[in-house]
């Protein structure tokens, strides 16, 4: 028996040792900046922070420009977009300054001294190359089509649009510039070597990917034109379980939690409030946190009375109470969240079952007392609601919507679907009747802005609202061709009034992203695209 036990123990240890040797660290692609001079703390300058560990629930795969999460995180450290959107939705210069006289021709000038991490200067040619290169990749992402891209000199490029667009620069806030001298001749950037994939022009250089630790490590780039950032090393660490991630923050094993276009959940935020050394920071969310979107081109969502009945049957107070954080606010009929450029006040959405029944009666529906399913066009009034299975809270939204609508006799039937099928339906077949989802701030601002890209059925393939109405298309064209900010604001107001009058989609509530971080950290800068993690934060963050 002793022999058997000894054998088992030996086997266990052998396996453990074997596992210990199987370290799959990707070697560092650049020397660590250990030779870099350390700037000592002065009363004016806070002490440098040696390392920050950022926990995330997103998966971290082998780094590549094609890997979504790497691309997002690199946008906050490694890359420098031409421009960024600040907390007040204003476009600000970043890698380039910009000027335009007619909103049709945009002149971008690379800021003096900006270099790639291999020391080569960033040029106007790189910008032109990036735009042309992206257009050739079959990424499926909407690409801006330019009438011409003219390189004026080594640092200035002129982008000529087919028509004036006052908001054009917002589409450049996530443009990851590509070094022409590296990628020229590489047909498919996903096949480029790791060293080529991770080169950038931001304040941090990519250091390593550790598959076992599930981390990306970035080190400060000593020669960045703004000088050294306040943090030497930034590590992103992935957790598959959100519960474990939250516990890790409470135990201070990580310094903060980050989710692109998101924050910690309301329940977790409550828990963090009572935890030691954690600060919650609400960031104004200009995305549409939770939306009920009709397919406006399919029955029964193509009936305005049905849409309005649904809008009046929803219990917004309950949504606010059950799912919103303490910073959440009631949504309005204009659909576009507060904080969006061009927002106007429209009536706040409230529940009114009597009005809902009136609209159902106007639609010809009978039996709307909620005892049984109402009859509409000779059949039970049933709406199939598509719900993504990967985000559990959507199913909870759906359950509450079902209970709300049942009170006026509308039956909601769930179609719980995986992400590929969701995309197939929302981007190609459009066979759904309605869906519950979220529209990110960046998504809302794409194309014409005002969420029109998501709502129009005549524009991009991702027109989830499938509005085919010529009146709406006319508004979209006005937004797209606005020749001045005044024109754009007028069209934006018209768009929101259209939403309020026609209810093609309903915003269930609006909220703030709640960011949770160690109380030792302070001085985060808020960015309209990336939230509290962005290039500017690395120069404002301090350790108390």
């Amino acid at each position, binding site marked *: 028996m002793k022999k058997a036990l000894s054998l088992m123990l030996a086997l266990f240890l052998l*396996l453990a040792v074997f*596992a210990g040797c199987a370290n799959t660290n990707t070697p560092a692609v650049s020397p660590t900046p250990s030779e870099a001079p350390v700037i000592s703390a002065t009363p004016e300058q806070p002490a440098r922070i040696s390392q920050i560990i950022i926990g995330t629930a997103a998966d971290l795969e082998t780094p590549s420009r094609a890997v979504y999460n790497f691309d997002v995180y690199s946008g906050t450290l490694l890359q420098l977009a031409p421009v960024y959107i600040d907390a007040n939705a204003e476009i600000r210069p970043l890698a380039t300054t910009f000027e335009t006289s007619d909103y049709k021709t945009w002149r971008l000038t690379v800021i003096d001294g900006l270099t790639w991490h291999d020391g080569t200067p960033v040029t106007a040619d790189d910008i032109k190359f990036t735009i042309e290169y992206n257009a050739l990749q*079959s990424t499926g992402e909407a690409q801006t089509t330019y009438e011409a891209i003219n390189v004026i000199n080594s640092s200035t490029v002129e982008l000529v649009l087919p028509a004036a667009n006052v908001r054009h620069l917002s589409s450049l806030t996530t443009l990851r510039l590509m070094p022409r001298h590296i990628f020229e001749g590489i047909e498919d950037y996903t096949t480029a070597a790791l060293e080529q994939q991770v080169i950038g022009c931001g304040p941090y250089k990519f250091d390593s990917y550790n598959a076992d*630790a599930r*981390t990306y490590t970035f080190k400060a780039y000593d020669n960045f034109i703004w000088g050294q950032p306040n943090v030497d090393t930034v590590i992103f660490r992935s957790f598959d379980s959100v519960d474990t991630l939250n516990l890790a923050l409470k135990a201070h094993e990580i310094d903060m939690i980050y989710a692109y276009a998101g924050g910690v959940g309301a329940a977790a935020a409550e828990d963090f409030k009572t935890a030691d050394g954690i600060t919650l920071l609400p960031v104004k969310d200009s995305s549409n946190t939770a939306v009920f979107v009709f397919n406006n081109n399919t029955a029964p969502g193509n009936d305005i009375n049905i849409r309005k009945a649904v809008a009046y049957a929803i219990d917004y107070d309950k949504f606010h109470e059950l799912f919103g954080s303490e910073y959440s606010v009631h949504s309005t009929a204009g659909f576009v969240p507060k904080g969006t450029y061009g927002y106007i006040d429209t009536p706040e959405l409230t529940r009114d079952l009597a009005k809902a029944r009136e609209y159902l009666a106007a639609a010809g529906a009978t039996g709307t007392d909620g005892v049984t399913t109402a009859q509409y066009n000779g059949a039970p009034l049933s709406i199939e609601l598509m719900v993504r299975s990967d985000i559990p809270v959507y199913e909870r939204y759906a359950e509450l919507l079902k209970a709300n609508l049942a009170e006026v006799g509308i039956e909601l039937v769930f179609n719980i679907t995986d992400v590929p099928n969701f995309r197939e339906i929302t981007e190609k077949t459009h066979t759904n009747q309605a869906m519950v989802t979220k529209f990110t701030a960046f998504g809302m601002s794409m194309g014409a802005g005002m969420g029109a890209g998501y709502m129009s059925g005549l524009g991009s393939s991702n027109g989830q609202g499938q509005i085919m109405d010529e009146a709406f298309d006319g508004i979209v064209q006005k937004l797209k061709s606005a020749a001045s900010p005044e024109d754009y604001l007028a069209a934006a107001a018209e768009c929101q009034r259209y939403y309020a009058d026609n209810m093609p989609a309903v915003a269930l509530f609006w909220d703030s992203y709640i960011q949770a971080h160690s109380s030792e950290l302070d001085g985060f800068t808020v960015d309209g695209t990336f939230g509290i993690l962005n290039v500017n934060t690395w120069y404002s963050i301090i350790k108390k």
Partner: protein
Amino acid sequence: MIQSVRGLLSALVCLLVIVSVNFFLPRLMPGDPVLMLTGLEDDLVSEAEYRMYREKLGVDDPLYAQFGRYVSALLRGNLGYSYHYKRGVGDMIAERLSNTLSITLPAVALSSALAMLLALYAGSKRGSAADSVLTGGAIIINAVPGFLIGMLIITLFAYKLGWLPFGGLASAAPKNALTDRLSHLVLPITALSLGAMPGKYLILRNQTAAAIDEKYVIYARARGISERRIRFCHIFRNVSQTFVTMIGLNVGFVLSGSLIAENLFSIRGMGQLMTASIAARDFPTMQGCLFVSALAVISADIVTRLVCIAIDPKVRLGVYETE
């Protein structure tokens, strides 16, 4: 002998069926097999690209020719190429398999050893306080969902006590790779062991409790043989077949069954790869994972049969067959 040959033949048939299902599934499902196998979007792929992939995958050849190529590639250890991950499926599985095995094999060994020791002790002390405590404890643990066991362990050892890390298989910059790796393995192995132990314990304990009244045990006691020797050399030998079969099943399913532990402890293992490939509809990876899992289950079954034959003279000498 005949049993061994029968076992091997049935295992081979099973493997053949799985390989066939694996091959035919994406080809017989509605939709274009080229898009299915490559994961490409039909409105994004150009005509030239589509033709290139169609030729590369050989989907215009007769099915038997494609099947022949598929089997021949499998025999060469080529599990295909994932167009989603842009990597060889075999490479990805090899990478993930080592992570999964590093937590599951020790967990199988540890849970089996613990189950054996405790079950033989509790069974031989049938009705005692120790038996009640151990059996009651095993029933309670068996009733607790795996993820809850994992969360409790993390909360206690990582969060409250701070003794061990929250997850992953390594630190970003470990000072000592070996101790760092071992410290990361402790919690997932403990969670998996606790989950796998009660089933084996309860079966072995009941068999032991029934065996203590057998004549061979009474006779052994009368011969003055020590209780420990009776437990391990006499009783265990007679009741071990079911136990060995359960360990075999454990080994077979560890490849896919560790998903909860992988998720809680953020380990990039086979379970995670399977889930991700299903979510992404990455058929080549799904097929590779299914093949490797099936191979593991079948191999474990064969080994279990052989071990049972070796430890049971009745099987070895063909007593059952003559009966």
